[in-house]
């Protein structure tokens, strides 16, 4: 039985990760990576020209967010979150945005390939072996105090909450939902945070938050960042 190859679009802030994964997946049967980007808007453009069968997206991107990618593309094809964080920490946000699955980097290439094939057939994909742990973390997050940035006294309590969520990779809409605010209010808070911290991008603000040692669990995504992130 022969199947046509599945075309994948990768959305991830690290070019070397995209290139590597593209190579590694090419050696798996019936898979090929047709494009990659670290930018939300570019992801939508690539999706319309390349018509991928499945999109894999990190949540924290160079520009925009993975939740934004999911909202833009979810009605065209399955969008599966592939995150450096623990999948339990982002599962509910991913599902709310319309993701077709939620996977972390803690799996070998071969298993990822199998999960992609499964997502292409319309199944919601998640690591079965860690399912209980994932659900425990996801449910713990519901009642949890929002992670804050106490090491930054120049911020108001609300701004610290918002920054904690920015550092977790949430976009304004998800933060608004979490804090029961309007997206416009969140936008204002984020603007004030950037101004007070003297930075220009959310990624920079997240880095400041993390370097103050208030990193919430599941923010491994940000730990890999070098000093040169930002608008590029």
């Amino acid at each position, binding site marked *: 039985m022969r199947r046509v190859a599945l075309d994948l679009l990768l959305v991830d802030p*690290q070019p*070397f990760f995209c290139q*590597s*994964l593209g190579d590694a997946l090419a050696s798996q049967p019936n898979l090929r990576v047709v494009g990659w980007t670290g930018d939300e808007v570019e992801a939508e453009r690539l999706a319309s020209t390349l018509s991928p069968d499945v999109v894999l997206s990190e949540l924290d991107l160079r520009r925009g967010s993975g939740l934004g990618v999911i909202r833009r593309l979810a009605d065209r094809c399955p969008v599966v979150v592939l995150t450096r964080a623990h999948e339990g920490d982002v599962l509910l946000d991913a599902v709310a945005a319309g993701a077709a699955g939620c996977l972390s980097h803690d799996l070998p290439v071969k298993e990822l390939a199998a999960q992609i094939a499964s997502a292409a057939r319309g199944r919601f994909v998640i690591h079965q072996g860690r399912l209980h742990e994932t659900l425990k973390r996801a449910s713990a997050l519901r009642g949890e105090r929002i992670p804050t940035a106490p090491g930054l006294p120049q911020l108001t309590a609300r701004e610290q909450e918002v920054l904690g969520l920015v550092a977790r990779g949430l976009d304004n809409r998800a933060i608004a939902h979490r804090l029961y605010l309007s997206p416009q209010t969140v936008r204002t808070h984020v603007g004030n945070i950037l101004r007070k911290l003297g930075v220009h991008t959310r990624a920079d603000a997240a880095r400041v938050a993390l370097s103050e040692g208030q990193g919430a669990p599941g923010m491994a995504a940000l730990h890999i960042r070098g000093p040169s992130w930002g608008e590029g």
Partner: protein
Amino acid sequence: MSQKRTSVVVASADRLFADAAAAYVDGRPGFKTEATVFDGVRALTVVGRLRPQALLILGDQLPRLGPAPLSREVARRWPLTAVVILGGAEEGLATVLPADADGSAVLEALGSAPERGATEQAPPRADGVARLRSLTRREREILSLLATGAARSRIAAQLGISEHTVRTHMQNLYAKLECHTRLDVVRFAADLGLMSAPSSP
């Protein structure tokens, strides 16, 4: 004894990235991935056994032994193994690439063209001695400290001079030795037998 392909060990706490990067590097002409490891202690053991030409560390975290102490240990024990860290903090002898470096930058750092690797590892000896003679006493002191993997701040503290002065000495030293990275400097020192020999296999 020159090898045709640059042998590489990949280390990362990120299992998927390590797996994928290993496949990427192995698929490039002139490169061969010898092993993939997911923690720092294991990386040290494997590097000691395989003596790869390069150790590629992805990210700024590794279980059990972090990228910084790992790269210092590798530089001390096996100075001919180049250490490349993608997306980590500035660290002694390692070549540190920004997290958004692409594949060609990574390969370049790993020692892209085998010929280039060969000349770096075995500069003509007489030439090397002549270059060494051109160093001042202070520059030689700094060279010997660089070869131990000491950070600039430590060299400054040890010699009782400012970091800025160390930086100036290093610039002159690099220019005289025709080195571009700390790794070049260490290889230079190792080739001239200025370092304690790596423990035998």
